[in-house]
């Protein structure tokens, strides 16, 4: 009798108590993290190695195709990719096909260029706009961007995000179309990576990879398996793994700076929260089956 009451009461508990538990489970490990390091999965390593060993004259293109709602998962990827490209001295072109992605790209560029230029002593160490990197910005519709970049990027983006005419930028002498792009990484929370495959890759054969929210990551495995994507970063965990690889690369290159890695930082909380959710499911099921058996 006593036991049944507890089980029934457990099932009827107000949701706000569960909300409170989740809040604490996530908050405490953020303030007092335990030391755990993510180990890179094969698909993350594949993308890292590809960019790491890319010929120097090939540029990295990053398409910031997500919106502020999924910033927590995806922004760390943009930051890590930018750091990687600058650390290996590849040219970078940044764009977005989502108008709401513009501000996020701008934030990431401002952050990473500041990091590198604060630690630079010579011209070779610093990153300069229009020479080492370019922020093409955004235009519409998606087809104009994805198909047009195969012909001439300056026609798609006649002016960059800041309002400069792109033909006047020295870097654009080296990045004319997809032929000069070693790999284009689309960071997205929707089906946009599939559009990149359909339009940019089918017609122009550009190499692609994607960083994607965990929600849709499982749906993108068929494209990794088919080789249409060279590796993939899945969710905050994928971001954390990439952060680790980039950090190792930077240390190897003598860049022993203290930088915030928001993905890695989150892993303690993530672990605790997964355990909590699993516990919720298990307790909920025990209560459910126990009371159902009684009712029968």
């Amino acid at each position, binding site marked *: 009798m006593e036991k049944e009451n507890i089980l029934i009461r457990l099932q009827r508990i107000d949701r*706000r108590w569960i*909300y409170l538990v*989740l809040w604490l489970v*996530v*908050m405490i490990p*953020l*303030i007092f993290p335990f030391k755990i390091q993510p180990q890179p999965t094969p698909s993350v390593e594949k993308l890292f190695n590809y960019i790491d060993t890319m010929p120097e004259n090939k540029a990295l293109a990053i398409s910031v195709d997500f919106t502020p*709602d*999924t*910033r*927590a*998962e995806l922004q760390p990827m943009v930051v890590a990719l930018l750091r990687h490209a600058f650390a290996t001295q590849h040219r970078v072109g940044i764009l977005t096909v989502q*108008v*709401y992605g*513009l*501000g996020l790209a701008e934030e990431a560029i401002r952050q990473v260029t500041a990091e590198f230029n604060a630690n630079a002593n010579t011209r070779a160490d610093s990153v300069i706009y229009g020479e080492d990197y370019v922020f093409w*910005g*955004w*235009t*519409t*519709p998606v*087809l104009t961007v994805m*198909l047009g970049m195969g012909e001439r990027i300056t026609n798609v983006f*006649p*002016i960059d*995000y800041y*309002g400069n005419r792109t033909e006047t930028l020295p870097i654009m002498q080296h990045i004319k179309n997809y032929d000069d792009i070693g790999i284009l990484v689309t960071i997205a929370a929707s089906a946009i990576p*599939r559009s990149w*495959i*359909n*339009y940019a*890759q*089918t*017609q122009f054969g550009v190499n692609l990879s994607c960083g994607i*929210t*965990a*929600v849709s*990551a*499982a*749906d993108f495995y*068929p494209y990794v*398996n*088919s*080789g*249409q994507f060279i590796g993939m970063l*899945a*969710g*905050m*965990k994928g971001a954390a793994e990439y952060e680790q690889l980039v950090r190792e690369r930077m240390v190897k290159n003598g860049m022993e700076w203290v930088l915030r890695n*928001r993905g890695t*930082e*989150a892993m303690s*909380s*993530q672990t605790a*929260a*997964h355990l909590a*959710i699993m516990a919720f499911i298990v307790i909920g099921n025990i209560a459910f089956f126990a009371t159902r058996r009684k009712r029968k």
Partner: protein
Amino acid sequence: MNISTDPWVWIAAILTLAIFSFLYKENPLYRFAEHLYVGIANGYAITFYWHRVLVPSFFDRVGAASTPIATKIWLIVIAVIGALYFTRFIPKVSWLVRIPIAIVLGYACGASIPRAIDAEIIRQAKATIITRASFAHWQTGLWAVIILLGVIATISYFFFSSERKGVLKPLSYAGIIFIMIGFGASFGYTVMARISLFIGRLQFLLGDWLGLIK
């Protein structure tokens, strides 16, 4: 503790808490924040549609002396067609809105058909076919066979024209097992995703605002 003195960080923090207040109860503060969001998002979009599309692709070119007159007329014709979107709000001529929609929709559909067949159907089918090269290692060979069987089983689960009997019965049953494992993978990943979003907000509240995270 190292609380931020930036007024904008405080504004961001207050807005964050306003949305979180929904967890306790639907309330005026939440409604305020929600309506504010819709307004700002649209204002932001207007900014960039104006500065980064209409101005460089239309106004600058029509205004430039170097643009040939034929091109100018051509651009103005397109802009007039685009402006037909306004007729959506004028009941008598609102059908005219279908013209710009037809131009964009038709081209997008036409452009997608050959490319999607190539990228999504042919490339995916190719990746499923087993060749002798798949067996370079016994493991990769075995996984390729499982994928092939799984794909066929899943397709047969969504095969509606005939009853599930004969060979279709065990196949579609295997299909549902594959589908459930696939959905389980999505489920686990979705849990991870949702938690990440909340961690992101706490990183802001505890880190950027209160300065509790080092």
